[in-house]
Protein backbone atom coordinates (compact mmCIF):
# COMPACT_ATOMS: atom_id res chain seq x y z
CA UNK A 1 0.00 0.00 0.00
CA UNK A 2 2.66 2.47 0.98
CA UNK A 3 4.47 1.67 -2.25
CA UNK A 4 1.41 2.34 -4.32
CA UNK A 5 0.88 5.62 -2.54
CA UNK A 6 4.43 6.63 -3.12
CA UNK A 7 4.93 7.15 0.60
CA UNK A 8 8.50 6.53 1.59
CA UNK A 9 10.21 6.14 4.91
CA UNK A 10 11.42 9.67 4.48
CA UNK A 11 12.86 11.16 7.61
CA UNK A 12 14.52 13.93 5.71
CA UNK A 13 14.45 17.51 6.88
CA UNK A 14 11.72 19.55 5.23
CA UNK A 15 12.76 20.93 1.86
CA UNK A 16 15.26 18.20 1.11
CA UNK A 17 14.82 16.42 -2.19
CA UNK A 18 12.93 13.16 -1.86
CA UNK A 19 14.61 9.92 -2.79
CA UNK A 20 11.56 8.72 -4.68
CA UNK A 21 9.13 9.96 -7.28
CA UNK A 22 6.26 10.60 -4.88
CA UNK A 23 4.92 13.92 -3.74
CA UNK A 24 1.88 15.22 -1.89
CA UNK A 25 0.01 15.51 -5.18
CA UNK A 26 0.70 11.94 -6.24
CA UNK A 27 -0.17 10.59 -2.81
CA UNK A 28 -3.50 12.40 -3.00
CA UNK A 29 -4.03 11.15 -6.52
CA UNK A 30 -3.02 7.63 -5.54
CA UNK A 31 -5.44 7.67 -2.61
CA UNK A 32 -8.19 8.90 -4.87
CA UNK A 33 -7.44 6.18 -7.41
CA UNK A 34 -7.46 3.46 -4.75
CA UNK A 35 -10.74 4.70 -3.28
CA UNK A 36 -12.11 4.83 -6.80
CA UNK A 37 -11.00 1.26 -7.44
CA UNK A 38 -12.82 0.09 -4.33
CA UNK A 39 -15.93 1.96 -5.44
CA UNK A 40 -15.59 0.56 -8.95
CA UNK A 41 -15.28 -2.96 -7.56
CA UNK A 42 -18.45 -2.50 -5.52
CA UNK A 43 -20.37 -1.06 -8.45
CA UNK A 44 -19.07 -3.66 -10.88
CA UNK A 45 -19.75 -6.72 -8.75
CA UNK A 46 -22.44 -5.77 -6.24
CA UNK A 47 -24.67 -2.96 -7.41
CA UNK A 48 -24.73 -3.29 -11.20
CA UNK A 49 -26.89 -5.99 -12.75
CA UNK A 50 -25.85 -8.67 -15.23
CA UNK A 51 -26.69 -8.06 -18.87
CA UNK A 52 -29.78 -10.11 -19.53
CA UNK A 53 -32.89 -9.32 -21.51
CA UNK A 54 -35.77 -11.17 -23.09
CA UNK A 55 -34.77 -12.93 -26.28
CA UNK A 56 -36.85 -13.30 -29.41
CA UNK A 57 -38.27 -16.61 -28.15
CA UNK A 58 -40.62 -16.56 -25.24
CA UNK A 59 -38.95 -17.26 -21.92
CA UNK A 60 -35.43 -17.19 -23.33
CA UNK A 61 -32.94 -14.68 -22.01
CA UNK A 62 -30.11 -13.32 -24.08
CA UNK A 63 -27.22 -10.99 -23.32
CA UNK A 64 -23.70 -11.09 -21.97
CA UNK A 65 -24.92 -12.00 -18.48
CA UNK A 66 -22.14 -11.53 -15.94
CA UNK A 67 -19.43 -11.31 -18.59
CA UNK A 68 -20.48 -7.68 -18.93
CA UNK A 69 -18.56 -7.05 -15.72
CA UNK A 70 -15.36 -7.42 -17.74
CA UNK A 71 -16.41 -4.37 -19.73
CA UNK A 72 -15.83 -2.15 -16.71
CA UNK A 73 -12.11 -2.79 -17.12
CA UNK A 74 -11.96 -3.31 -20.85
CA UNK A 75 -13.71 -0.17 -22.04
CA UNK A 76 -11.87 2.28 -19.75
CA UNK A 77 -8.55 0.61 -20.58
CA UNK A 78 -9.29 0.89 -24.30
CA UNK A 79 -10.26 4.54 -24.02
CA UNK A 80 -7.17 5.41 -22.01
CA UNK A 81 -4.95 3.39 -24.34
CA UNK A 82 -5.95 5.60 -27.19
CA UNK A 83 -5.69 8.68 -25.01
CA UNK A 84 -2.19 7.78 -23.82
CA UNK A 85 -0.88 6.86 -27.27
CA UNK A 86 -2.54 9.95 -28.72
CA UNK A 87 -0.84 12.03 -26.04
CA UNK A 88 2.47 10.39 -26.94
CA UNK A 89 1.98 11.35 -30.58
CA UNK A 90 0.99 14.87 -29.61
CA UNK A 91 3.99 15.28 -27.30
CA UNK A 92 6.21 13.91 -30.10
CA UNK A 93 4.82 16.49 -32.51
CA UNK A 94 5.39 19.30 -30.04
CA UNK A 95 8.91 18.03 -29.45
CA UNK A 96 9.69 18.15 -33.17
CA UNK A 97 8.37 21.70 -33.19
CA UNK A 98 9.87 23.16 -30.03
CA UNK A 99 12.65 20.77 -28.99
CA UNK A 100 11.90 20.77 -25.27
CA UNK A 101 13.27 17.81 -23.34
CA UNK A 102 10.09 17.98 -21.28
CA UNK A 103 7.99 16.86 -24.24
CA UNK A 104 10.35 14.01 -25.07
CA UNK A 105 10.01 12.64 -21.56
CA UNK A 106 6.25 13.08 -21.62
CA UNK A 107 6.07 11.16 -24.89
CA UNK A 108 8.15 8.36 -23.40
CA UNK A 109 5.97 8.15 -20.28
CA UNK A 110 2.74 8.16 -22.30
CA UNK A 111 3.96 5.51 -24.73
CA UNK A 112 4.96 3.13 -21.98
CA UNK A 113 1.68 3.54 -20.12
CA UNK A 114 -0.19 3.25 -23.41
CA UNK A 115 1.49 -0.05 -24.20
CA UNK A 116 0.68 -1.47 -20.75
CA UNK A 117 -2.95 -0.35 -21.06
CA UNK A 118 -3.09 -1.74 -24.57
CA UNK A 119 -2.00 -5.10 -23.20
CA UNK A 120 -4.76 -4.87 -20.59
CA UNK A 121 -7.27 -3.96 -23.28
CA UNK A 122 -6.29 -6.83 -25.53
CA UNK A 123 -6.19 -9.41 -22.73
CA UNK A 124 -9.52 -8.42 -21.18
CA UNK A 125 -11.01 -8.24 -24.67
CA UNK A 126 -9.89 -11.75 -25.44
CA UNK A 127 -11.08 -13.07 -22.09
CA UNK A 128 -14.45 -11.42 -22.68
CA UNK A 129 -14.63 -12.63 -26.27
CA UNK A 130 -14.21 -16.27 -25.34
CA UNK A 131 -17.55 -16.68 -23.51
CA UNK A 132 -19.51 -14.03 -25.45
CA UNK A 133 -18.29 -14.54 -29.02
CA UNK A 134 -17.09 -18.07 -28.46
CA UNK A 135 -13.54 -17.32 -29.56
CA UNK A 136 -10.36 -15.91 -28.03
CA UNK A 137 -9.39 -14.13 -31.16
CA UNK A 138 -11.43 -12.98 -34.10
CA UNK A 139 -9.50 -11.99 -37.21
CA UNK A 140 -12.59 -10.59 -38.81
CA UNK A 141 -12.88 -7.99 -36.11
CA UNK A 142 -10.93 -5.01 -37.22
CA UNK A 143 -10.90 -3.11 -33.97
CA UNK A 144 -9.26 -6.10 -32.34
CA UNK A 145 -6.70 -6.53 -35.08
CA UNK A 146 -5.85 -2.88 -35.40
CA UNK A 147 -5.47 -2.49 -31.66
CA UNK A 148 -2.98 -5.32 -31.85
CA UNK A 149 -1.18 -3.53 -34.66
CA UNK A 150 -1.11 -0.38 -32.55
CA UNK A 151 0.30 -2.40 -29.67
CA UNK A 152 3.06 -3.74 -31.92
CA UNK A 153 3.79 -0.32 -33.35
CA UNK A 154 4.31 1.24 -29.94
CA UNK A 155 6.19 -1.81 -28.71
CA UNK A 156 8.54 -0.98 -31.60
CA UNK A 157 8.66 2.59 -30.30
CA UNK A 158 9.75 1.37 -26.88
CA UNK A 159 12.31 -0.88 -28.58
CA UNK A 160 13.79 2.16 -30.33
CA UNK A 161 13.85 4.06 -27.05
CA UNK A 162 15.73 1.26 -25.35
CA UNK A 163 18.65 1.53 -27.77
CA UNK A 164 21.41 3.52 -26.09
CA UNK A 165 22.69 6.61 -27.82
CA UNK A 166 23.00 10.36 -27.65
CA UNK A 167 19.92 11.64 -25.78
CA UNK A 168 18.99 14.30 -28.30
CA UNK A 169 19.33 12.02 -31.31
CA UNK A 170 17.25 9.41 -29.55
CA UNK A 171 14.65 12.01 -28.73
CA UNK A 172 14.34 13.06 -32.36
CA UNK A 173 14.11 9.55 -33.71
CA UNK A 174 11.56 8.61 -31.09
CA UNK A 175 9.51 11.70 -31.81
CA UNK A 176 9.29 10.81 -35.48
CA UNK A 177 8.36 7.24 -34.67
CA UNK A 178 5.81 8.28 -32.04
CA UNK A 179 4.16 10.62 -34.49
CA UNK A 180 4.31 8.03 -37.27
CA UNK A 181 2.51 5.52 -35.09
CA UNK A 182 -0.32 8.00 -34.65
CA UNK A 183 -0.99 7.80 -38.37
CA UNK A 184 -2.23 4.31 -37.57
CA UNK A 185 -4.83 5.58 -35.10
CA UNK A 186 -7.12 7.19 -37.72
CA UNK A 187 -6.61 4.15 -39.94
CA UNK A 188 -7.96 2.08 -37.05
CA UNK A 189 -11.15 4.07 -37.03
CA UNK A 190 -11.43 4.19 -40.80
CA UNK A 191 -11.05 0.48 -41.20
CA UNK A 192 -13.77 -0.16 -38.62
CA UNK A 193 -16.21 1.57 -40.92
CA UNK A 194 -14.80 -0.13 -43.99
CA UNK A 195 -14.93 -3.66 -42.71
CA UNK A 196 -18.25 -3.13 -41.03
CA UNK A 197 -19.82 -6.11 -42.72
CA UNK A 198 -17.14 -8.34 -41.26
CA UNK A 199 -16.93 -6.96 -37.76
CA UNK A 200 -18.24 -8.59 -34.63
CA UNK A 201 -17.67 -5.53 -32.54
CA UNK A 202 -20.70 -3.64 -31.47
CA UNK A 203 -21.10 -0.34 -33.24
CA UNK A 204 -20.85 1.01 -29.77
CA UNK A 205 -20.73 -1.12 -26.70
CA UNK A 206 -22.74 1.46 -24.83
CA UNK A 207 -25.61 1.26 -27.32
CA UNK A 208 -25.71 -2.48 -27.56
CA UNK A 209 -25.87 -3.09 -23.85
CA UNK A 210 -29.23 -1.32 -23.72
CA UNK A 211 -27.74 0.30 -20.78
CA UNK A 212 -29.41 0.19 -17.45
CA UNK A 213 -28.71 3.31 -15.47
CA UNK A 214 -26.38 1.57 -13.07
CA UNK A 215 -24.46 -0.18 -15.82
CA UNK A 216 -23.82 3.11 -17.53
CA UNK A 217 -22.86 4.70 -14.24
CA UNK A 218 -20.36 1.92 -13.53
CA UNK A 219 -18.87 2.24 -16.98
CA UNK A 220 -18.43 5.99 -16.60
CA UNK A 221 -17.04 5.51 -13.11
CA UNK A 222 -14.59 2.99 -14.55
CA UNK A 223 -13.42 5.56 -17.07
CA UNK A 224 -12.83 8.13 -14.34
CA UNK A 225 -11.10 5.70 -12.00
CA UNK A 226 -8.88 4.42 -14.80
CA UNK A 227 -8.15 8.03 -15.60
CA UNK A 228 -6.92 8.61 -12.06
CA UNK A 229 -4.76 5.49 -12.24
CA UNK A 230 -3.33 6.58 -15.58
CA UNK A 231 -2.61 10.07 -14.33
CA UNK A 232 -0.86 8.68 -11.26
CA UNK A 233 1.21 6.36 -13.43
CA UNK A 234 1.98 9.15 -15.86
CA UNK A 235 3.24 11.51 -13.18
CA UNK A 236 5.50 8.89 -11.69
CA UNK A 237 6.71 7.61 -15.03
CA UNK A 238 7.46 11.13 -16.17
CA UNK A 239 9.52 11.73 -13.06
CA UNK A 240 11.40 8.48 -13.61
CA UNK A 241 12.17 9.63 -17.15
CA UNK A 242 13.37 12.91 -15.73
CA UNK A 243 15.60 11.12 -13.23
CA UNK A 244 16.95 8.88 -15.99
CA UNK A 245 18.00 11.92 -17.96
CA UNK A 246 19.50 13.56 -14.89
CA UNK A 247 21.39 10.39 -14.00
CA UNK A 248 22.70 10.26 -17.54
CA UNK A 249 23.88 13.86 -17.40
CA UNK A 250 25.39 13.29 -13.95
CA UNK A 251 27.36 10.44 -15.49
CA UNK A 252 28.40 12.77 -18.28
CA UNK A 253 29.62 15.40 -15.83
CA UNK A 254 31.78 12.77 -14.14
CA UNK A 255 33.18 11.67 -17.50
CA UNK A 256 33.83 15.29 -18.40
CA UNK A 257 35.78 15.89 -15.21
CA UNK A 258 37.79 12.75 -15.84
CA UNK A 259 38.52 13.86 -19.38
CA UNK A 260 39.71 17.27 -18.20
CA UNK A 261 41.97 15.63 -15.66
CA UNK A 262 43.47 13.64 -18.51
CA UNK A 263 44.10 16.90 -20.35
CA UNK A 264 45.67 18.53 -17.31
CA UNK A 265 48.06 15.60 -16.99
CA UNK A 266 49.07 15.95 -20.61
CA UNK A 267 49.48 19.73 -20.56
CA UNK A 268 53.07 20.25 -19.35
CA UNK A 269 54.51 17.81 -21.86
CA UNK A 270 52.59 19.22 -24.79
CA UNK A 271 53.39 22.81 -23.79
CA UNK A 272 57.10 22.13 -23.63
CA UNK A 273 56.99 20.34 -26.95
CA UNK A 274 55.97 23.53 -28.68
CA UNK A 275 55.19 23.27 -32.36
CA UNK A 276 56.70 20.41 -34.20
CA UNK A 277 60.08 18.76 -33.66
Amino acid at each position, binding site marked *: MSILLGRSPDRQPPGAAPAHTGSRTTRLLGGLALAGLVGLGLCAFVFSPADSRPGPEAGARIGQFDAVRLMYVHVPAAIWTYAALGACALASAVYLWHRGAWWDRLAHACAEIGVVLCAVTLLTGMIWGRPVWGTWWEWGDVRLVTTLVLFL*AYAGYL*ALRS*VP*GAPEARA*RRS*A*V*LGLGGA*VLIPIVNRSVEWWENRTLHQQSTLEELRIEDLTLFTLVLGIFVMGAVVLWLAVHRFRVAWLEAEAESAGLQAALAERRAEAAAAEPGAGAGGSGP
Partner: protein
Amino acid sequence: MREALLVAAKDLRIEMRSRVLLFQVAPFAVATLVLLGFALDADRSALRNFSPGLFWVAVLLTALLAAQRSVAVEHAGRAADALLLSGVGPARIFAGKALALAAQLAALEVGLGVAMVVLYDARIEHFGLAVASAAAATVGIAAAGTLYGVLAAPMGVRETLLPVMLLPVFAPVLIGATRAFGDALGTAATNGWAWFGLLGLFALVYAVFGALAYGPLLEAEA
Protein backbone atom coordinates in the same frame (compact mmCIF):
# COMPACT_ATOMS: atom_id res chain seq x y z
CA MET B 1 13.71 18.02 -57.99
CA ARG B 2 16.93 17.81 -59.98
CA GLU B 3 18.78 16.85 -56.81
CA ALA B 4 16.17 14.23 -55.91
CA LEU B 5 16.60 12.69 -59.36
CA LEU B 6 20.38 12.76 -58.97
CA VAL B 7 20.10 10.89 -55.68
CA ALA B 8 17.65 8.39 -57.16
CA ALA B 9 19.83 7.83 -60.22
CA LYS B 10 22.83 7.34 -57.96
CA ASP B 11 21.01 4.66 -55.93
CA LEU B 12 19.84 2.86 -59.05
CA ARG B 13 23.32 2.99 -60.52
CA ILE B 14 24.74 1.50 -57.35
CA GLU B 15 22.22 -1.33 -57.65
CA MET B 16 23.16 -1.85 -61.29
CA ARG B 17 26.78 -2.17 -60.28
CA SER B 18 26.43 -4.23 -57.12
CA ARG B 19 23.37 -6.31 -58.12
CA VAL B 20 22.54 -7.02 -54.50
CA LEU B 21 18.83 -6.83 -55.16
CA LEU B 22 19.01 -8.93 -58.29
CA PHE B 23 21.20 -11.70 -56.93
CA GLN B 24 20.25 -11.71 -53.26
CA VAL B 25 16.88 -10.11 -52.66
CA ALA B 26 14.98 -11.34 -55.71
CA PRO B 27 15.85 -15.01 -55.12
CA PHE B 28 14.81 -14.53 -51.52
CA ALA B 29 11.45 -13.20 -52.67
CA VAL B 30 10.81 -16.15 -54.97
CA ALA B 31 11.96 -18.59 -52.30
CA THR B 32 9.42 -17.02 -49.94
CA LEU B 33 6.66 -17.66 -52.48
CA VAL B 34 7.77 -21.26 -52.86
CA LEU B 35 7.88 -21.84 -49.10
CA LEU B 36 4.44 -20.33 -48.66
CA GLY B 37 3.31 -22.79 -51.33
CA PHE B 38 4.71 -25.68 -49.30
CA ALA B 39 3.03 -24.29 -46.18
CA LEU B 40 -0.37 -24.41 -47.86
CA ASP B 41 0.07 -28.00 -48.95
CA ALA B 42 0.18 -27.17 -52.65
CA ASP B 43 -3.57 -27.19 -52.90
CA ARG B 44 -4.07 -25.53 -56.26
CA SER B 45 -7.36 -23.80 -55.55
CA ALA B 46 -6.26 -22.73 -52.06
CA LEU B 47 -3.06 -21.28 -53.51
CA ARG B 48 -5.02 -19.38 -56.11
CA ASN B 49 -7.40 -18.04 -53.50
CA PHE B 50 -4.62 -16.94 -51.19
CA SER B 51 -2.31 -15.72 -53.94
CA PRO B 52 -2.97 -11.98 -53.28
CA GLY B 53 -2.06 -12.30 -49.62
CA LEU B 54 0.95 -14.53 -50.23
CA PHE B 55 2.19 -12.18 -52.93
CA TRP B 56 2.03 -9.15 -50.66
CA VAL B 57 3.60 -10.94 -47.72
CA ALA B 58 6.51 -11.80 -50.00
CA VAL B 59 6.67 -8.22 -51.23
CA LEU B 60 6.74 -6.79 -47.71
CA LEU B 61 9.45 -9.14 -46.51
CA THR B 62 11.43 -8.27 -49.60
CA ALA B 63 10.82 -4.59 -48.99
CA LEU B 64 12.40 -4.93 -45.55
CA LEU B 65 15.61 -6.15 -47.14
CA ALA B 66 15.49 -3.55 -49.87
CA ALA B 67 14.97 -0.77 -47.33
CA GLN B 68 17.90 -2.03 -45.30
CA ARG B 69 20.04 -2.10 -48.40
CA SER B 70 19.00 1.43 -49.28
CA VAL B 71 20.25 2.63 -45.89
CA ALA B 72 23.37 0.47 -45.93
CA VAL B 73 24.45 2.11 -49.18
CA GLU B 74 24.65 5.47 -47.43
CA HIS B 75 26.28 4.22 -44.29
CA ALA B 76 29.14 2.30 -45.83
CA GLY B 77 32.02 4.74 -45.74
CA ARG B 78 29.76 7.39 -44.20
CA ALA B 79 28.52 8.58 -47.57
CA ALA B 80 25.48 9.90 -45.72
CA ASP B 81 27.74 12.59 -44.26
CA ALA B 82 28.76 13.62 -47.74
CA LEU B 83 25.10 14.01 -48.68
CA LEU B 84 24.58 16.18 -45.60
CA LEU B 85 27.62 18.29 -46.42
CA SER B 86 26.43 18.73 -49.97
CA GLY B 87 23.65 20.89 -48.60
CA VAL B 88 20.87 19.08 -50.45
CA GLY B 89 17.55 19.58 -48.68
CA PRO B 90 16.48 16.57 -46.63
CA ALA B 91 13.10 16.41 -48.34
CA ARG B 92 14.90 16.01 -51.67
CA ILE B 93 17.19 13.32 -50.34
CA PHE B 94 14.10 11.55 -49.01
CA ALA B 95 12.31 11.89 -52.34
CA GLY B 96 15.32 10.57 -54.23
CA LYS B 97 15.89 7.61 -51.97
CA ALA B 98 12.19 6.72 -51.86
CA LEU B 99 11.93 7.02 -55.64
CA ALA B 100 14.87 4.67 -56.17
CA LEU B 101 13.47 2.22 -53.61
CA ALA B 102 10.05 2.35 -55.30
CA ALA B 103 11.60 1.66 -58.69
CA GLN B 104 13.52 -1.31 -57.32
CA LEU B 105 10.45 -2.66 -55.55
CA ALA B 106 8.39 -2.27 -58.71
CA ALA B 107 10.91 -4.36 -60.61
CA LEU B 108 10.83 -7.00 -57.88
CA GLU B 109 7.03 -6.99 -57.91
CA VAL B 110 6.93 -7.64 -61.63
CA GLY B 111 9.17 -10.66 -61.12
CA LEU B 112 7.12 -11.84 -58.17
CA GLY B 113 3.91 -11.30 -60.13
CA VAL B 114 5.14 -13.59 -62.87
CA ALA B 115 6.16 -16.14 -60.26
CA MET B 116 2.74 -15.86 -58.65
CA VAL B 117 0.94 -16.48 -61.94
CA VAL B 118 3.18 -19.44 -62.69
CA LEU B 119 3.39 -21.01 -59.25
CA TYR B 120 -0.04 -20.27 -57.85
CA ASP B 121 -2.01 -20.38 -61.08
CA ALA B 122 -3.32 -16.88 -60.36
CA ARG B 123 -5.33 -15.09 -63.04
CA ILE B 124 -5.25 -11.35 -63.30
CA GLU B 125 -8.75 -10.32 -64.32
CA HIS B 126 -8.53 -6.57 -63.88
CA PHE B 127 -5.10 -5.60 -65.02
CA GLY B 128 -5.58 -1.88 -64.53
CA LEU B 129 -6.68 -2.29 -60.93
CA ALA B 130 -3.77 -4.62 -60.19
CA VAL B 131 -1.22 -2.20 -61.61
CA ALA B 132 -2.76 0.87 -60.00
CA SER B 133 -3.07 -0.64 -56.54
CA ALA B 134 0.42 -2.16 -56.78
CA ALA B 135 1.80 1.25 -57.72
CA ALA B 136 0.05 2.98 -54.82
CA ALA B 137 1.16 0.29 -52.38
CA THR B 138 4.73 0.46 -53.69
CA VAL B 139 4.95 4.20 -53.19
CA GLY B 140 3.63 3.80 -49.65
CA ILE B 141 6.04 0.99 -48.85
CA ALA B 142 8.98 2.88 -50.33
CA ALA B 143 8.14 6.07 -48.41
CA ALA B 144 7.68 4.26 -45.10
CA GLY B 145 10.73 2.06 -45.74
CA THR B 146 12.97 5.03 -46.49
CA LEU B 147 11.77 6.92 -43.44
CA TYR B 148 12.02 4.05 -40.96
CA GLY B 149 15.24 2.84 -42.54
CA VAL B 150 17.01 6.03 -41.56
CA LEU B 151 15.39 5.82 -38.11
CA ALA B 152 17.17 2.55 -37.44
CA ALA B 153 20.22 3.41 -39.50
CA PRO B 154 23.00 4.53 -37.24
CA MET B 155 22.70 1.92 -34.56
CA GLY B 156 24.39 -1.42 -34.42
CA VAL B 157 21.03 -3.16 -34.21
CA ARG B 158 19.59 -2.16 -37.57
CA GLU B 159 18.78 -5.67 -38.77
CA THR B 160 16.61 -6.44 -35.76
CA LEU B 161 15.20 -3.00 -35.04
CA LEU B 162 13.96 -2.15 -38.51
CA PRO B 163 11.47 -5.03 -38.84
CA VAL B 164 10.07 -4.39 -35.36
CA MET B 165 9.34 -0.80 -36.27
CA LEU B 166 8.39 -1.23 -39.89
CA LEU B 167 6.17 -4.31 -40.03
CA PRO B 168 3.34 -2.85 -37.92
CA VAL B 169 3.35 0.17 -40.21
CA PHE B 170 3.08 -2.14 -43.20
CA ALA B 171 -0.04 -3.79 -41.79
CA PRO B 172 -2.53 -1.39 -43.41
CA VAL B 173 -0.70 -1.77 -46.73
CA LEU B 174 -0.94 -5.52 -46.49
CA ILE B 175 -4.67 -5.37 -45.74
CA GLY B 176 -5.41 -2.85 -48.47
CA ALA B 177 -3.20 -4.35 -51.16
CA THR B 178 -4.42 -7.88 -50.47
CA ARG B 179 -8.05 -6.83 -50.77
CA ALA B 180 -7.40 -4.77 -53.88
CA PHE B 181 -5.57 -7.67 -55.47
CA GLY B 182 -8.36 -9.97 -54.35
CA ASP B 183 -10.68 -7.96 -56.52
CA ALA B 184 -8.19 -7.71 -59.39
CA LEU B 185 -7.53 -11.46 -59.33
CA GLY B 186 -11.16 -12.32 -58.85
CA THR B 187 -10.60 -14.14 -55.56
CA ALA B 188 -12.58 -11.76 -53.36
CA ALA B 189 -15.77 -9.85 -53.89
CA THR B 190 -14.78 -6.37 -52.75
CA ASN B 191 -14.55 -2.98 -54.32
CA GLY B 192 -10.88 -2.99 -55.26
CA TRP B 193 -10.83 0.65 -56.27
CA ALA B 194 -11.94 1.69 -52.79
CA TRP B 195 -8.95 -0.16 -51.39
CA PHE B 196 -6.80 1.49 -54.00
CA GLY B 197 -7.97 4.75 -52.46
CA LEU B 198 -6.84 3.60 -49.02
CA LEU B 199 -3.45 2.62 -50.41
CA GLY B 200 -3.16 5.98 -52.12
CA LEU B 201 -4.00 7.73 -48.86
CA PHE B 202 -1.35 5.73 -47.02
CA ALA B 203 1.22 6.54 -49.70
CA LEU B 204 0.34 10.22 -49.56
CA VAL B 205 0.45 10.39 -45.77
CA TYR B 206 3.80 8.66 -45.49
CA ALA B 207 5.32 10.56 -48.41
CA VAL B 208 4.41 13.90 -46.82
CA PHE B 209 5.31 12.76 -43.32
CA GLY B 210 8.61 11.33 -44.52
CA ALA B 211 9.55 14.47 -46.43
CA LEU B 212 8.89 16.56 -43.32
CA ALA B 213 10.45 14.20 -40.78
CA TYR B 214 13.57 13.28 -42.74
CA GLY B 215 15.31 16.54 -41.86
CA PRO B 216 15.18 16.12 -38.08
CA LEU B 217 16.25 12.51 -38.50
CA LEU B 218 19.30 13.39 -40.55
CA GLU B 219 20.13 16.04 -37.98
CA ALA B 220 19.81 13.45 -35.25
CA GLU B 221 22.34 11.27 -36.99
CA ALA B 222 24.84 14.07 -37.32
